[in-house]
């Protein structure tokens, strides 16, 4: 294992675990029916939504090569299929992957 890659992995895991670990420490003082718990609950959902929206709208890596309009169409139709299949998670997911690969290979 080369030294620099090993250190990069270690630094990444430390940066990640620290948020989880401090989360547990904070949790010890928080009751599940308190206001602050509800606030953290909102923060958790909003940061997740922010992250997912950023990945779709300002992607990095493979997705950034797909046209903005195509991404938009795929996302909207996936949500449509999600509701159409009574909130099944598998159909919209598989649909999005296949349709995006197809459009992109045209």
């Amino acid at each position, binding site marked *: 294992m*080369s030294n620099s890659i090993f250190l990069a*992995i270690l630094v990444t895991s430390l940066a990640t675990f620290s948020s989880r670990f401090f*989360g547990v420490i904070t949790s010890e003082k928080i009751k599940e029916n308190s206001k602050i718990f509800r606030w953290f609950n909102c923060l*958790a959902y909003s940061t997740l939504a922010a992250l997912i929206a950023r990945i779709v709208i300002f992607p990095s890596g493979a997705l950034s090569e797909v046209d903005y309009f195509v991404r938009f169409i795929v996302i909207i139709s996936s949500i449509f299929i999600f509701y159409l299949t009574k909130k099944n998670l598998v159909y919209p997911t598989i649909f999005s*992957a296949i349709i995006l690969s197809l459009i992109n290979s045209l």
Partner: protein
Amino acid sequence: MINLKYFFKGLGCVKSFDSPAIALGCCMVAIGALFKNIGFNLQESVFSTFLTYALPGSLVMAETMIIGGSLLNIFFAVWLVNSRLYPMTVSLMPLMMHKSQPKWKYYISCHFVAVSAWLIMKNNYKSIAKENRIDYWIGVGTATWSIAIIATFIGYITADYLNKDIMIGLAIINPVYFMCMMIGSMKTLQINSSIILGAVLGPAFYLISPEWCILFGGLIAGTIAFILGEENVK
């Protein structure tokens, strides 16, 4: 020690037809392939998922390494994108804390806090008695973590067969799956407005600061949603 009945019950969560295992597996396959492309060997790739187990963080690490960033750059960039794990942990652990359970379980199992396991637990915790939730959670976490590690391995060894179109297909699975899963969990005013505002403000803040957008967008969106919900209850 761990109550095996609940551990296995948690472990079995990923077996269902629409479990997050599919989305998680597909995107970790893409990560395995990416690791190979940036020059990691097999052990390093698997070790990375084993230790980090957070997809956006691994992506940021890879990107920062490609542009030749220092270790400090990597730490800062990963910390910013993975800081969402802090509110996620705080909004989960109090639901599982019970005085009969030893603390080490919480300190070790917090490693499993990632979107897939977190959403499974958030959707199922009410069906498990509070004192058994941590054992159930360790089961859920072990299952999703194992899938991530195995998928990284598969992605690495199949990297040469994955062309650009397949990689793009794999890349959309993760956001689509979790977007649908989040829409599915929209049940209260507070959660609904958190998700909608987060999805608007996150990308909006990207125009001001790409690095800080998730943290600032999430913090402001979550706080507005919280106030909205509290006012409405009154």
